C-alpha cells in the first residue's frame, strides 16, 4: 500500500475535525501518515492514531511557526521527496492552501483545490470531485504530474475511527535563509465564543442586514440548537459581527447539516459559502428574496418575531 501524507491542522495540539476527515479519506487511498508541524504532539497523538495514522512525522522547529507558509512548504516538499507518497492531503485553510501551492511548484506536482470528495480511480490514483462557481458546478479531476496535492474542504466526509500503527518519526527540517523572510511579529489569539467552530459545526445560524445590528435573536436560536453563528458580509461590514464569522466567497465556506439564514437576501457571494449545506432554512420578510430559491423550508416574516418564537418552542421541546 502506498503512503498518503496528511497535513495536520491543529491549535497547540488540539486536532481540528478536518484532520480526522482527511485521515478517513487517506485510509481509502492508502496508508495515512500524519505530518504534525509545531508543538503539542502529546495532546494530538491519541486522535491521530485513532483515525488511522500509521506514521506520524514530527516537524518541530521555531522556524515553522515564527514564519508563515514558506518554511512549512520547504519542509513538506522535503518530506514528499523522501517519502514519495501517492498523494498529499491538505486542509482548506488559507495558510495550508498556500503551503500546498508552493509544494506543488517545488515538487513539480499538480494541485487540486476545493475537493469535496477524493476516491481511488481506476489506476489507484486519486480522483477528486470539486465544487466550483459558487457551488453551481461539480467537476471531476485528477492530477497528471508529480504527486497529487489535494486541498480538501471541511465536512467532505464523516470521520470514522480505525486505529493506525502510530509510529513516530522526528524529521529534521532544513529551512533556508530565504524562507525566513516574512516574520510574524505579533499574534493575538481570537477570543473564543464558546460555540462550535463555524466551519466544523453541524448547524449554522446566520444573520444579515435584516437583523438591523441586533444578533441576540440569532445567537439565542443558535444556542438552542447547539449551533455556530455566522454572518453575511453586510452585517460584518456594518461592524455588527466580527469578520471571522463571515460566510461566503470572502469569508468561510460552511457545509453543515443545517443552515439557517435570517435576514439574508442570498447574494451569489453569500451562496458561495453555504450552498452545499444539506438542509437550508431561511427567515426573511421579503418573499422575493433570492435565498428562498434554495430553501428546504422558509418563513416569510419578521425575524424579530419568528426567531424568538422558534427558539422558545425548541427549548420547550427539548425539555
Amino acid at each position, binding site marked *: 500500500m502506498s503512503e498518503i501524507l496528511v497535513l495536520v491542522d491543529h491549535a497547540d495540539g488540539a486536532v481540528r475535525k478536518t484532520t480526522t476527515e482527511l485521515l478517513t479519506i487517506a485510509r481509502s487511498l492508502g496508508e495515512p501518515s500524519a505530518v504534525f508541524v509545531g508543538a503539542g504532539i502529546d495532546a494530538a497523538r491519541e486522535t491521530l492514531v485513532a483515525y488511522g495514522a500509521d506514521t506520524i512525522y514530527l516537524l518541530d522547529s521555531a522556524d515553522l511557526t515564527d514564519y*508563515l*507558509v*514558506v518554511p512549512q512548504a520547504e519542509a513538506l516538499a522535503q518530506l514528499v521527496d523522501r517519502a514519495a507518497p501517492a498523494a498529499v492531503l491538505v486542509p482548506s485553510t*488559507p495558510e495550508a*492552501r*498556500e503551503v*500546498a*501551492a*508552493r509544494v506543488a*511548484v517545488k515538487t513539480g*506536482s*499538480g*494541485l*487540486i*483545490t*476545493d475537493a469535496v470528495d477524493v476516491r481511488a480511480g481506476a489506476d489507484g490514483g486519486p480522483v477528486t470531485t470539486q465544487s*466550483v462557481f*459558487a457551488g*453551481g*458546478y*461539480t*467537476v*471531476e*479531476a485528477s*492530477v*497528471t504530474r508529480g504527486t497529487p496535492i489535494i486541498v480538501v474542504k471541511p465536512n467532505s466526509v464523516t470521520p470514522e475511527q480505525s486505529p493506525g500503527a502510530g509510529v513516530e518519526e522526528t524529521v529534521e527540517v532544513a529551512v533556508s535563509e530565504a524562507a525566513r*523572510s*516574512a*516574520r510574524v*511579529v505579533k*499574534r*493575538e489569539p*481570537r477570543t473564543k465564543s464558546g460555540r462550535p467552530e463555524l466551519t466544523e459545526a453541524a448547524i449554522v445560524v446566520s444573520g444579515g442586514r435584516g437583523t438591523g445590528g441586533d444578533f441576540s435573536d440569532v445567537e439565542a436560536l443558535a444556542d438552542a*440548537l447547539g449551533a455556530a453563528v455566522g454572518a453575511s458580509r453586510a452585517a460584518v461590514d456594518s461592524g455588527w459581527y466580527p*469578520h*471571522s464569522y463571515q460566510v461566503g*466567497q*470572502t469569508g468561510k465556506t460552511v457545509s453543515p*447539516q*443545517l443552515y439557517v439564514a435570517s435576514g439574508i437576501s442570498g447574494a*451569489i*457571494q453569500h451562496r*458561495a459559502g453555504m*450552498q452545499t449545506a444539506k*438542509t437550508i*432554512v431561511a*427567515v426573511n420578510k421579503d418573499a422575493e428574496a433570492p435565498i*428562498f*430559491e434554495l*430553501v428546504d*423550508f422558509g*418563513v*416569510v416574516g419578521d425575524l424579530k*418575531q*419568528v*426567531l424568538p*418564537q*422558534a427558539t422558545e*418552542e425548541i427549548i420547550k*421541546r427539548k425539555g
Partner: protein
Amino acid sequence: MKIVVCVKHVPDATAQRRFDADHTVDRAGVDGLLSELDEYAVEEALQIAAAHDGEVVVLTVGPDQAADAARKSLQMGADSAVHVVDEQLHGSDAIATSLVLAEAVRKIGDYDIVVCGMASTDGAMGVVPAMLAERLGVPQVTFAAEVSVDSGSVTARRDADLATETIEASMPLVLSVTDQINEPRYPSFKGIMGAKKKPVQTWSLADLGVDADQVGLAAAWSVVHSVAARPPRSQGVVVTDDGAGGRQLADYLAEQKFI
C-alpha cells in the same frame, strides 16, 4: 517606488457562468469584468503609490477581452499596463499562470511590491500569489487586511483563523489583500478620459521567453474529466408568518430531527 498589480479578467459571477466543451471556463460567451477582488489590489497599489511617490503598472494574463480589466485599472489611476496574451495560454492552470506572471514581473523589472487580490472570483483558488512569490524568490505577505509601508519594508495585519497576526517583510515582495482592506474607488470621468492616453504593452509568450509547451491545457498538471451543473435545489415549503411562523419552523426542525 514601483508597484506591479496583477489583475484578472473573469466571467461575471452574476451571469450564467459555464464551461466550454474542453472543460475550460467559457471566457468568450459570458460577459467579463475586472475581478472584483482585484479592485482592492488596484486601490491599495494606488494608495501606496500616492503616499510614496510611486508608479503603478497593471499586469494581466488572459485572452483579448482581458484588456478590459487592464483598462479599468488604468481608469482607476494606474500609470501603465502590460497585457500578456497568446493563443497558447488557453487552458493554463494556476501553476502555468504563475510562471507567466513571474516572467512578466521580471521583464517589467525593478519592482518593490507586487500586489494581488486574495483570490480570483472564477477559479477562487487563492494560490497564485504564493506561487508567484515562490517563483520570484521574494517574501510573501498574503491576505492582508491592513498594510503599512515604510522605507524598505511592509507591515501587514491578517485575520487568520485562530489569531490576528502582524507580519513584517522587506521589499521586494508579493502582497495579497482581502476585501477588508479598503474601499475601491470608482473611475472618475477624468480617469476614464486619461486612461485612453496611458501606455499599454502587449506581450506574447515569446516576448517572455516562456516555451509554449509549459503552458496551456495540454501542459496542465491536472486534468478535468467531467463537468456537471449542480442540480438546482428544488424549493421546499415556504410559509408566510401569520403569528405561528416560529412554531412552524420548530415543527420542521423537529420533523427533520434537528431537535
